[in-house]
């Protein structure tokens, strides 16, 4: 028997050497790995003929050695969707073996969009996942809905699992409310560049393993880990410039002067501005906005040998906001280590620490005066920014009637600073008990602290009543999680295989907060740094919160002949949030998949490379309510006096503050999913389509109850919500060869309905939103705008608002030509609250993403479009911007085309100072179509050829330039069709009022590997 030595080199298609590639003599235990320069050397005996080359992410390759002694191998990067490994709860599975509905998003796709938080980068990348960017504020959070909105009073954000750690994403637990406006997302602490892949579990089969937290879907994040082979050092960096995507055009000083004068004349009042032509304009938006830089630097060390693997990263990210004095900075490091201690035992750890600091400006609505964005849109353009005759040196306030503070003074002098840090880490040990049976235990910690400071000096309009105010808030929280799982997998004679997991986990969350504030700071110098300088301190308060979960779960995957796949999953969760007797909930699911393409009758259908049919059904839960809801808390409520001739004796009582509902239990969602996976023409076309029907029952709903209970409402398990829809995902490889072009398209269609609210009474919410049985969440309700009265006669003979009738005591308010008309829905001849009607819905009919990637030699180009169709937005800004009383600045396009006898129109009313009665009316005029198509990202990248780099010692070099939010097509007239003033609120969606505007970003970047 002879033996020979075979040598060679392994490279990628682009010529880069591959270190750490496993080279095995087929059928033997002879294994070597390639060294730093990609070379290998292996001994082969005479009767052995085949070498197998394998490397994660690349297609396995077998070569017949024949009588050669040298082989150079080129490994092809794995493009076959179906053979990819997908992370599922407590395990992994080949995509082809999936029975549930899971989308996988890889690091490459996430890299394209510069984002402070990975949830932003997910937008448009996965079918069934609707991501809404809530504002353009640096570090701002997003709202994620996986297959619709399932709850009204409990949370709707998905569960996040980061390297096995179940993360609380409820911002309410992490903020003190001192730095107002959209909060800094809790997930912003995780560096998106550290992420290897994101898996989104959508159907009950996939999420039931997370039981009571699965109803809103699960997002599993896996961070990058080291690989065996030569250690590598990579530097990733980019620099970007952001600018406002879209400015709101309002009147200049001359136009505004004319406008105010006309409004006064129309109300028989004296004009104010003598010669508007000579007035100087202050562009308040320009005065607060800027072009702002952002930059990211990241250094990664990774590598390992056959026993130890490591990946260590450090990064610094800094972003200035497009509104002056707002910014976001993050310092973070991560260390992932894995070590095989023995043949049976592997231990490892993942540790992340991030520190985030942010300066903020007040946006959205505010107390006394609105936030700076609204101030800047509406402030009188005739007034100057500075006024040296006033304390503080700034023009104090709008002088036209609408209460507005000087936005520049707000931006310059209002101080709002947040510093938060988050430690996320876990350790694990995995022990192989026997062939196919493995035990794993892990312990994880998620510790965060957040400190928020704010200060408004006395010379700001905002602080007029308080004479200067400072607030300090701090919150600290800790989640710990212990997980123990047993994994078993076994193949029986190639016919059957079984893969099972059983586990026990314990988790606890607790937080503590402290909040202090004080009024009246006569001295402006110390601000929030010395709260004791205040003359009028306010009562401090603090809070605590705690919940615990104990869970048992199991899953069995059973496969017959690779054709019939069965999955049964169950989880039992015990939660402290519910009363004795209702603490435990059981959440089962089952799934079946049939790989039709493996059937004999499909053998000759060559066009179909893979065809799989999937069906699953199960129940998952939601427990995202605050703790202590099932306890009746006792507190002081009533007090009183016993009076007598000797004076008055004060007494106070204590009583239960809420109804004790011991029956409070889990909110549950039953979900049916039917899906198909098709792969055609040797995987050139892959398609995944799913239909789902989610019915949420036992909805945790604040409900009216009989007064004999002593209370009028409580949280009850009543009500139903149904979400049904389709997730469609198509990927095609259009051309191969020198020019490679691939396309991916995903579409999410969802229909939502509150099928039962346990009351036939409408519940009216702020922002024109109505909750009514039979309607979707986010339905708008108000008057129907019906054009403009073209003549006084028409106005006199039409139904009008109360006070606009010809008999009205105030002649100025009588409806005349040029005033707005509303529809008399009930036909009773007057316009009042009974004439309100449904005005559309904030939920889109569908959302989509469309990506094209071209690569030619060393150049890559990608275009990513993304959009939303059929959703309405309440543009509350227009309540003011279309208010033609002259109290504030208005939309230029509307005001310049306002109704005048000489220039009538049917859209915009006349200017009218006093007597205009339709100010602040929520009508179809305010509800706009917010559908959009957006070129979310364009990236052009150049990869330096390996042969050029050879001499430099640099392994790889990629440079790129990109643009985000470059182009948007929409009819929406606000800053951006994506916004929500109420953040992640469940019911208050599609409402835009003075939010931080979205940005357009240009970036250049570099990735270098050493």
């Amino acid at each position, binding site marked *: 028997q002879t033996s020979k030595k075979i040598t060679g080199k392994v490279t990628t298609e682009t010529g880069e050497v591959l270190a750490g590639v496993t080279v095995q003599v087929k059928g033997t235990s002879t294994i070597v790995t390639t060294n730093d320069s990609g070379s290998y050397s292996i001994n082969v005996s005479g009767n052995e003929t085949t070498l197998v080359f394998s490397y994660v992410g690349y297609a396995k390759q077998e070569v017949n050695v024949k009588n050669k002694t040298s082989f150079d191998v080129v490994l092809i990067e794995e493009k076959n969707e179906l053979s990819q490994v997908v992370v599922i709860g407590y395990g992994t599975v080949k995509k082809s073996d999936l029975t549930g509905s899971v989308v996988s998003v890889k690091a490459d796709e996430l890299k394209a969009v510069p984002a402070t938080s990975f949830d932003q980068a997910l937008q448009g990348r996965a079918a069934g996942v609707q991501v809404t960017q809530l504002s353009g504020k640096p570090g701002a959070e997003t709202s994620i809905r996986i297959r619709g909105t399932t709850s009204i009073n409990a949370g709707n954000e998905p569960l996040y699992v980061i390297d096995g750690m179940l993360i609380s994403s409820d911002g309410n637990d992490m903020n003190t409310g001192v730095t107002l406006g959209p909060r800094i997302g809790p997930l912003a602490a995780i560096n998106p560049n550290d992420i290897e892949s994101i898996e989104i579990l959508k159907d009950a089969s996939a999420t039931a393993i997370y039981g009571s937290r699965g109803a809103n879907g699960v997002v599993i994040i896996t961070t990058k880990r080291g690989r065996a082979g030569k250690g590598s050092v990579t530097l990733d960096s980019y620099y970007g410039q952001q600018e406002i995507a879209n400015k709101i055009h309002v009147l200049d000083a001359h136009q505004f002067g004319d406008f105010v004068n006309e409004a006064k004349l129309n109300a028989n009042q004296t004009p104010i501005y003598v010669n508007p032509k000579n007035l100087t304009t202050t562009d308040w938006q320009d005065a607060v906005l800027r072009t702002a830089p952002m930059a990211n630097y990241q250094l990664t060390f990774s590598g390992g040998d056959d026993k130890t693997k490591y990946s260590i990263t450090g990064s610094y990210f800094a972003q200035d906001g497009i509104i002056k004095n707002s910014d976001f900075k993050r310092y973070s490091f991560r260390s992932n280590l894995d070590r095989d201690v023995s043949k049976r035992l592997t231990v490892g750890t993942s540790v992340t620490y991030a520190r985030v600091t942010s300066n903020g400006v007040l946006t959205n609505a505010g107390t006394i005066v609105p936030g700076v964005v609204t101030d800047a849109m509406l402030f009188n353009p005739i007034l100057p920014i500075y006024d040296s005759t006033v304390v503080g040196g700034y023009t104090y306030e709008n002088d036209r009637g609408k209460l507005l503070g000087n936005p520049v003074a707000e931006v310059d002098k209002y101080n709002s600073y947040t510093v938060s840090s988050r430690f996320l880490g876990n350790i694990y040990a995995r022990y192989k008990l026997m062939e196919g049976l493995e035990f794993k235990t892990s312990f994880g910690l998620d510790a965060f602290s957040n400190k928020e400071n704010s200060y408004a000096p006395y010379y700001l309009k905002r602080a007029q009543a308080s004479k200067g105010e400072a607030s300090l808030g701090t919150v600290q929280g800790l989640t710990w999680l212990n997980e123990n799982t047993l994994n078993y997998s076994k193949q029986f004679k190639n016919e059957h295989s079984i893969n099972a997991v059983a586990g026990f986990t314990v988790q606890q969350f607790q937080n503590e907060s402290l909040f202090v504030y004080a009024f009246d700071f006569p001295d402006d110098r110390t601000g929030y740094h010395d709260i004791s300088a205040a003359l009028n301190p306010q009562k401090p308060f603090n809070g605590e919160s*705690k919940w615990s979960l104990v869970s048992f779960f199991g899953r069995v995957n059973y496969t017959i002949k690779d054709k019939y796949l069965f999955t049964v999953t169950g989880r039992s969760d015990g939660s*402290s949030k519910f009363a004795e007797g209702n603490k435990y909930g059981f959440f089962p699911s089952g799934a079946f998949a049939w790989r039709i393409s493996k059937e004999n009758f499909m053998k000759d259908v060559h066009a179909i490379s893979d065809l799989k049919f999937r069906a699953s059904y199960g129940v998952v839960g939601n427990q995202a309510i605050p703790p202590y809801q099932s306890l009746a808390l006792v507190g002081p*409520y009533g007090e009183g006096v016993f*009076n007598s001739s000797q004076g*008055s004796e004060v*007494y106070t009582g204590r009583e239960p503050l809420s109804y004790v509902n011991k029956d409070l239990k889990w909110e549950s969602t039953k979900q049916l999913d039917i899906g198909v996976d098709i792969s055609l023409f040797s995987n050139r076309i892959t398609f995944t389509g799913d239909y789902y029907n989610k019915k949420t029952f036992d909805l945790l709903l604040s409900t009216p109850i*009989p007064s004999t209970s002593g209370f009028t409402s409580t949280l009850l398990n009543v009500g139903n919500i149904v979400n049904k829809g389709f997730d469609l995902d198509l990927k095609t490889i259009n051309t191969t060869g020198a020019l490679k072009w691939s396309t991916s398209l995903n579409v999410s269609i969802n229909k939502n309905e509150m099928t039962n609210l346990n009351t036939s009474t409408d519940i009216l919410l702020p922002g024109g939103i109505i909750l009514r049985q039979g309607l979707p969440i986010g339905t708008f309700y108000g008057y129907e705008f019906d054009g403009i009265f073209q003549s006084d006669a028409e106005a006199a003979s039409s139904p009008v608002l109360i006070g606009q009738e010809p008999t009205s005591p105030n002649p100025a308010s009588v409806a005349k030509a040029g005033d707005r008309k509303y529809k008399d829905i009930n036909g009773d001849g007057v316009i009042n609250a009974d004439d309100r009607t449904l005005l559309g819905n904030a939920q889109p009919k569908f959302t989509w993403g469309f990506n094209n990637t071209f690569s030619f030699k060393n150049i890559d180009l990608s275009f990513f479009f993304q959009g939303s169709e059929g959703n309405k937005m309440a543009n509350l800004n227009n309540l003011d911007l279309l208010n033609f009383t002259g109290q504030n600045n208005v939309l230029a396009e509307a005001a310049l085309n306002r109704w005048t006898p000489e220039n009538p129109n049917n859209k915009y009313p006349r200017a009218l100072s006093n007597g205009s009665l339709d100010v602040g009316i929520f009508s179809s005029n305010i509800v706009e179509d917010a559908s959009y198509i957006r070129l979310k990202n364009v990236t052009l990248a150049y990869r330096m050829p390996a042969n050029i780099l050879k001499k430099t010692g640099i392994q790889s070099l990629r440079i790129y330039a990109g643009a985000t939010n470059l182009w948007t097509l929409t009819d929406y007239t606000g800053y951006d069709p994506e916004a929500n003033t109420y953040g992640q609120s469940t019911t208050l969606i599609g409402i835009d009022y003075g939010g931080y505007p979205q940005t357009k970003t240009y970036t250049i970047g570099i990735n270098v590997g050493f």
Partner: protein
Amino acid sequence: CKKFLTEDPKNVVAVTNFYQTEQDAVFAVNAIYAWLNSISSGSYAGVYLNSFWVTAGLASDEMNNQEIFSPYYDQTATFTYSSQNNALQEIWYTHYKTITLANIAIERIPLIQMDATLRTRLVNEAKFLRGMLYFDMVRMFGSIPLVLKESEPLTPSISSVDDIYAQIISDLSDAESLPLNYPPGDGRGRATSGAAKALLAKVYLTRGDYTNCAAKCKEVINSGEYALWDDFADVFKLSSRGGKEAIFSVGFGDAGGAIIFWEVGQFNVRLLPTALSAEGVENAQGWQVPTQDLYDSYDANDRRRAVTFVTEVHNPDGSITSIKPYIQKYWDRIAEPKANGTANDYPVIRYADVLLMLAEASNELGNTADAYTYINMVRKRARFDGTVYRDALPDYTNLSQEEFRAAVLKERRWEFVAEGQRWFDLARTHTLETLVPIAKPGVTPQTKHYLFPLPQREIDLNPNLVQNTGY
């Protein structure tokens, strides 16, 4: 594991760890009292803030409504109300709210380790209050749920009127062992034995049990705790609060600023005319006004007419403007010159009521001597004009039993204006149909009006409730 999942918050007190100390027991009972006046949320309405006595006044020949934006009060005044009446809903809610607090106290306090005497007293105070509240409710609504425990079904069934009265009598009888009085500054104003007996007398009177009514009235009188003020005007002075005529009252006011929250009464705001602003009175709305018939029914020399009504306004220039009558009896002009809210008590039951009840019961029992003695005590005071007894309102003599009944009812009308008595008196004596149309021509109460409709909200939420006939 079980302990791990048990909630034990440290920053808040839960029902599970309250009701453990003597102080907790006192707090639990105070909470019941605190719901009688006003509370710190919603419409601020406690049981006796306004809807109760306003409804009792409007649904009778006593008052009319002038409050705009309150169409439900217009409907009450004209007997056109429906089950959707806001005031009835408020009465229902506030009574049951307070009853549930009494239930908690009655059930929890006996389990607390504490001074036994105080423990018994506190439970009996709660029983007094529960009996008082159910007495309001059974008279207004008839068959309603009799919830008596802390934990009751969310949709309880109704109980018969007899069962409800049996419970009221049981609660008030237990409360008879309360102290006779409390020292000023140490609980004066809490429920007493006398209050329980006086209320019990009224329960018996309402049930037609005149023997027991008379017996309880006598016990109150013989206790020596109570007496009439010589001058009717003194009854409503702030300095008379908790005084000799007050058997049970609900306190209002902020105790001179000791309570930062709004605990003032609504008598002045609702009853005084806006025209009084000329005298420096603030926030007088004149929402509820007496019927002209009520004013006209008084003898001109009846002290009670002058005390109860204001008919003229003194302008700053010294001139006087005559106005139609408004009710001013709760306004202590000297102590509260600007009126606005008031710190005056709401009299749930006062000594004059006991005297008139005894007169009424004695008449029914044929004990005419007692009947005249007690009704004439009240008439005598009405003759006193502050310095002398006028030649008016002579003592009643030689009335037939029927005439005496009518006389007592009139006396009650003159004595208790705006004290939340009139609808109950007319309903008890079955005179709504005959007396209301006299004061309010065209307004014709019917048989169904001897009970109010159960609030529609409650009917909608509790299928076990049965709406009263005719609604």
